[in-house]
């Protein structure tokens, strides 16, 4: 298991298995390509560190999943035939955008724990925070204090994100892919942890029933959001079936 550079050093990817690669695996937010080591280590796969994670430099500007898909699309040249696309969580957002934009250049998709539809509209920030933000706008409260308040209130991912990655996170969590899903021509296998509390299996069900025209749904009992780490054997079986 070692990294190889792609796209003039914009992406570094773990190289698994031997021979010509036929799988492209995209990891979740805050993770890296090595997440797929347990499930894909001896299959011919490339698992990039998505820009801003692991060894790959952050994007120069605030982009969403579509922007990530454009960067990752440069890796498609490394495949002799359309690769099976594996996407976990955030990586699945990118996979769907990639498949929608380049239908002839990708094979089947295996998606797990992907927020394909927005689960709930963002609520209005609490009144105290709105006051703090206003005071900062007026120059009455330091940026440091505002940052401390944001850190107190944000999710774990939000607090851990720095610089442009924090703005990218805010953009991405507000995205849904109802437009892209119907444009995916390949078969999509949705493999979901039944106990996924971060992206509820209901998201998979709705996507399967209403937005994807060729899909299958598999629920994994006793498994949560991190399927690549919690159920690597099941993920591997799904990928092998898609090959």
């Amino acid at each position, binding site marked *: 298991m*070692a990294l190889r550079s792609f796209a003039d*050093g914009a992406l*570094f990817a773990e190289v698994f298995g031997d021979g010509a690669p036929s799988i492209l695996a995209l990891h979740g937010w805050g993770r890296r390509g090595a*997440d797929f080591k347990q499930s894909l280590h001896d299959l011919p796969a490339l698992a990039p560190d998505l820009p801003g994670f692991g060894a790959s430099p952050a994007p120069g500007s605030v982009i969403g999943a579509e922007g990530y898909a454009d960067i990752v699309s440069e890796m498609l040249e490394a495949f002799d035939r359309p690769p099976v696309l594996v996407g976990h969580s955030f990586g699945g957002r990118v996979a769907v955008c990639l498949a929608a934009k380049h239908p002839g250049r990708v094979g089947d998709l295996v998606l797990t724990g992907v927020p394909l539809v927005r689960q709930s509209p963002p609520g209005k920030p609490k009144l105290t925070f709105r006051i703090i933000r206003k005071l900062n706008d007026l120059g009455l409260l330091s940026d440091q204090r505002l940052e401390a308040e944001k850190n107190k209130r944000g999710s774990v991912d939000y607090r851990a994100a720095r610089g442009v990655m924090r703005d990218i996170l805010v953009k991405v969590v507000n995205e849904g892919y109802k437009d892209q899903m119907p444009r995916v021509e390949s078969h999509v296998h949705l493999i979901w942890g039944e106990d996924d509390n971060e992206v509820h299996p209901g998201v998979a069900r709705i996507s399967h029933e209403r937005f994807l025209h060729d899909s299958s749904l598999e629920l994994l009992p006793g498994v949560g959001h991190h399927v690549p780490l919690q159920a690597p054997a099941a993920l591997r079986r799904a990928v092998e079936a898609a090959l």
Partner: protein
Amino acid sequence: MTRPAVVFGGPADEHDISILTGLQVIRALGDVDAVYWSKTGDWHLVDNDLEASDFADGVPRKARELTFVASPGAGLMLKRKPLSPEAVLLACHGGPGEDGTLQGLFDMVGYRYTGPGQAASALGMDKLAFGAAMSAAGLPTLPRALVTVGDEQPPDFDSPFIVKPRFGGSSIGIEVADDWSTVLALKKSSRYFDQGAVVEPFVSSRDLQVAVRTYPQWEMSAIEAPARADDGIYSYDQKYLAWGGEVSEGRDLPATLDDEALTAITDLSRRVTEAAGLRGLVRIDYLDCDGELLVNEVNTIPGSMAAYLWIDPPIDRKTLFTDMISEALADRTRVFSVAGSDGTALRSAGTIASKLG
């Protein structure tokens, strides 16, 4: 009466981990001054009973500001009054607290401090220089080369390569690269390689780590085979910790070793201590390649002061840290010498103008 000070934190990637080590030392010793060195390099005297979370958003409340005056007899000042610790226990990981910068500053003000002096600290933090020093001393190491962008020729060992920041003591920034062009691309893109990168062959091996202390006499701890960060993928708890230091799960302590290997590590550790000029309580890391032992690196201020390794012989934390302070008090790391500068050369020198002619 003066008492020891514990300095922790510092403007370094491992600032947060250093807080954890510093608080452990403060708790074990009890009667000390707790000196927090912030991310921005400011100094603060803080309460001894703070928890790690009190530092999560920066300088804790009620911290008293200290200044540092780099003159002999001065050092850390509380409202213009020198703090005058009897000795300083350094608990800073990485960056200027471990790489000799702070050690040099403490030498200038006349502080007695724990761990190696300025030069050995700097050597321990420079993987290229440390590897070269070990090779020069005849100790077994992996070949190690500097990565220079524009250097199209790979070193004379085979891929895959392991690329490491030249300076720095943790596993932050370390990557395994499939080929030489990836090494060069990583050198260009990773901020961890801005100050330089070294490359070694990536070999199949297990890590072995041992702590060594040099006071009251040279002594070695039990040997640990830690879980490798790239073996099991990072746990959820480590999701946001880009630090592969102390991992509690999967640790093999004491490591299974035959007598021959144990003797070899003891002998090598003595020689590394001497060749690198080590002092205090340090951790030496080895690679065990199918029975062949290679010196990998030294950590001059190890995480948690490597106190967890002292199970054989069993030494408790308070004894370990008290002995470190006793060593600092017994022997200065450096005394500046002015021998030979007795004014003779100045009196007979004549005018400067005559030197310029």
